[in-house]
């Protein structure tokens, strides 16, 4: 390799250093919401209770939504069957937690082990179903949005019926193990024990996703593929394999989220996926389709707004998610962190 002469003088001489790229406004919006809620709620302890409950709920929603935003961003697939993987996770939790009930009630450590065992089995189950779902249902309709909506919804209906065959058509209780019942108290503020677990798991998932996306080559490929699939292929990478990997990982995450959601609701019905589907679509639209960070902020906003409005104006809480989405889209029509070049 010879050392080259410098040939780009004119391009370099007077160029301005680009400004910092990171957009803090959505974070500031989140902080502003939390700050504005304090005077509205009135009591500091109630505000703290609601804020923590909202953040924990948001983190659970993030776990179930993160896979879908990656699938949409990378594969341009509108997967309305994503809720099926959540339902599988929740039902697996009823079997695993039911089987480990006596063990789980022995102490906090045993409970956490039982929950992690349920998560592991749920991720394996949902990931395997996700692999089959991509191969049989999604693959024939790549690039055809209308067909994707119809067939993935159909796939979810079929999946729900299969769940009824395995676990029965009735709602199944998923009681919280004894060691995780109750709350910690900070003064008069109550922090539910389970929400602490949910918050830790949610933050761990976010950290792992953020690390994978920013520090690994696979993450680079996913981020690049979200922007320009064709160019990723022109660089020599088989994006179809990446599609399958992301779909399976997204399904597994949804399964894990299903365990968390089922324990949060303390009951599971075959329709749980369809019920959560609307919520997760709201979250990924708010976040900017394809953006993991946007999904994270969007989920926290949804969780906080649901808890604050539930306390301040319960009737408003019925449509608070939709109202939040409308407000965000009026401000940023492409969502909080739109993915460029798509």
């Amino acid at each position, binding site marked *: 390799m010879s050392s080259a002469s410098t040939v780009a003088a004119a391009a370099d001489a007077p160029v301005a250093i680009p400004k910092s790229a990171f957009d803090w406004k959505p974070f500031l919006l989140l902080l502003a919401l939390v700050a504005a809620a304090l005077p509205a709620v009135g009591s500091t302890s109630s505000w703290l209770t609601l804020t923590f409950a909202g953040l924990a709920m948001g983190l659970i929603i993030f776990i179930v939504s993160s896979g879908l935003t990656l699938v949409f961003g990378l594969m341009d697939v509108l997967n309305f069957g994503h809720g099926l993987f959540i339902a599988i996770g929740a039902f697996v939790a009823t079997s695993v937690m039911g089987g480990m009930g006596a063990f789980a009630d022995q102490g906090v450590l045993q409970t956490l082990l039982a929950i992690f065992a349920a998560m592991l089995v749920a991720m394996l189950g949902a990931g395997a179903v996700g692999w089959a779902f991509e191969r049989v249902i999604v693959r024939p309709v790549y690039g055809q949005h209308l067909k994707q909506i119809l067939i993935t919804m159909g796939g979810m209906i079929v999946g729900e019926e299969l769940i009824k065959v395995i676990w029965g058509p009735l709602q199944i209780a998923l009681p919280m193990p004894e060691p995780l019942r109750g709350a910690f108290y900070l003064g008069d503020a109550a922090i539910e024990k389970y929400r602490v677990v949910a918050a830790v798991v949610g933050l761990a998932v976010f950290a792992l996703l953020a690390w994978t996306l920013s520090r690994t080559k696979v993450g680079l490929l996913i981020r690049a593929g979200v*922007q320009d699939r064709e160019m990723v292929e022109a660089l020599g990478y088989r994006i179809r394999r990446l599609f399958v990997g992301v779909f399976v990982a997204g399904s597994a995450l949804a399964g894990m989220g299903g365990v968390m959601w089922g324990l949060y609701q303390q009951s599971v019905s075959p329709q749980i996926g369809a019920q959560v589907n609307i919520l997760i679509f709201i979250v990924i639209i708010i976040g900017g389709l394809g953006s993991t960070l946007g999904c994270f902020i969007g989920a926290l906003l949804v969780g906080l707004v649901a808890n604050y409005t539930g306390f301040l104006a319960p009737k408003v809480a019925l449509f608070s998610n939709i109202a939040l989405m409308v407000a965000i889209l009026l401000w940023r029509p492409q969502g909080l962190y739109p993915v460029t070049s798509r």
Partner: protein
Amino acid sequence: MTALLELRGVHTHIGAYHILHGVDLVVPEGQVTMLLGRNGAGKTTTLRTIMGLWGASQGSIAFRGQAIANRPTPEIAASGIAYVPESMGIFSDLTVKENIVLAARSARHEGELDRARLQWIFGLFPALQKFWLYPAGKLSGGQKQMLAVARAICEPRALILIDEPSKGLAPSIIQNLIGALRELKQQKTTILLVEQNFLMARALGDTVAVMDDGRVVHSGAMAELAEDEGLQQRLLGLSLGAHQ
């Protein structure tokens, strides 16, 4: 003169449209081949067909003697062909560094990039070193084009396809780009370069193929076309004198 890439009777359809009507093209090894022609002549389609981004409905494409027509794009790229599209294909949300790491298939992270080659690229395009950690979307048009070319050369490739690199760039930036591509030419890199800027074509080309209506209607030495204003007028509807 060894042919590195050879197209014989290539036809391409895009939907109902018949774009390429039997393209015959030879790209000699170690030379810069210019692909010229008016808008809509089929130049971009030819490059995309070589890369497998659009399928050839008929004809053959051989790279190093191996048939590559209608092979999957990643396989064609992995065989040693780099592609710089007209749109540049920059990943705007990724930093300059991440764009380069991604293009270097053998590197898992920055530490595995070929340092000597990277320094060579920084010599060609100092702006990329300056903005190494900045999002590529923040670069100017010229800097993005430099990044696009840098991605194509960050690892040795047998053939580089470049589609209209001068499009929309200021004359001073075009001069920089010509300088960088000339440096590549001195390294005996084989390049197939689509260009509308005839001055750039003359400055870089060893051989030339002129397309019209989905066919190659002239091929030969670039110097020959550059000296023959009548031929330029007939093939391209221009004369070099008008550009000077």
